[in-house]
């Protein structure tokens, strides 16, 4: 190879190498930044629903609660609710208040003794199992625990 060509070849390779390094230098932090929501952990914490003495066996009880959480750079207070069911006042089942079909809020039909979602006429039993309608799975449940006579739930990360 004559000197002129090897010089040209060397410079060409140098340009690609340096340009490539600069591109990687931006692409790596940029890509990491863009993808970072994938490994960002949501806040985990127990939320207090209230005194267990107020939750009586028999009928599901809708409990409204306020939840303070970090949403990006903002701290927001969200009003949320959950359906609490107990048979004996000791063991509690807490359902996410959204239908598992398309996320509509459902309510307790006292006459029919069923959870009824008005969007597509889905019904669930008191145990959360689907009785009729399109939902693909039983009602979602929160993890619960009772501390000092108070009922606590753990919000599901990524849940509605």
């Amino acid at each position, binding site marked *: 190879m004559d000197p002129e060509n090897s010089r040209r070849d060397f410079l060409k390779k140098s340009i690609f190498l340096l340009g490539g390094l600069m591109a990687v230098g931006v692409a790596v932090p940029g890509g*990491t930044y*863009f993808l970072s929501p994938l490994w960002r952990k949501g806040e985990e914490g127990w939320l207090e629903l209230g005194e267990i003495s107020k939750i009586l066996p028999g009928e599901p009880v809708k409990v409204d609660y306020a939840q303070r959480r970090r949403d990006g750079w903002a701290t927001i207070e969200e009003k949320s609710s959950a359906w609490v069911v107990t048979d004996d006042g000791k063991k509690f089942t807490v359902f996410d208040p959204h239908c598992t079909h398309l996320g509509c809020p459902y309510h307790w039909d006292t006459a029919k003794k069923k959870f009824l979602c008005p969007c597509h006429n889905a019904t669930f039993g008191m145990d959360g199992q689907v009785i009729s309608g399109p939902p693909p799975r039983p009602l979602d449940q929160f993890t619960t625990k009772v501390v000092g006579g108070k009922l606590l739930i753990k919000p599901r990360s990524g849940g509605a």
Partner: protein
Amino acid sequence: MRTLVDWLDERLQIREIKVALFDRKIPKGVGWIYTLGSLSLGIFLLQSVTGILLAMNYSPSPQFAYESVSYITHQVTLGNIVRGLHKWGASAMVLIVTLHMIRVYFMGSYKYPRELSWVVGVFIWLIVMGFGFTGYLLPWDQKGYWATMVGTTIAEQAPLVGPALAKLLRGGDTLGTVTLTRFYAIHVLVLPALVLTLIALHLFFVVRQGISAPPERDKPDGPHA
């Protein structure tokens, strides 16, 4: 890869574009100071990429602007690097574009037949100033706030149109919520659209005309010097 290039070349003659862009004849005597334009373009690309990324986590409201910038810096993985690149890139942009302009001036590159490159370039330089001015406010910190106060008050001193100009810049009588959204919109929508158009023109001119030869002693400037 080869066959794809062949396929495209057969239809669009893309190799001609490559030759026009990268295999241009370069006059004798050009050196490193002739790379400032390419460097400006490189920093512009850096600012575009990092700017888009920052916009994903920025909220242009007095309530959240500072908080969201702090979120980028401390919460987002490598957010401090991306923000740092944009911040230092901004300073580098002003510096390099200005040096590029000085090089063009002292080498007489602005002369016939390249006056249009110069005119468009001057507008690009002004837009870079606009980027700097509007971007400085966005972190909504003390420095940005008062710098914008000073900047808009300077505009207010202009005879006759001053007060109207300041009001337009601030979006009202005082510097506040509306100023921030205005500056943000100008920074991420108006100026990028303008500068992209002008950069396209500027690049078209330089590719079409080739770069100017450095002036030589005892040689009069000819039309193709």
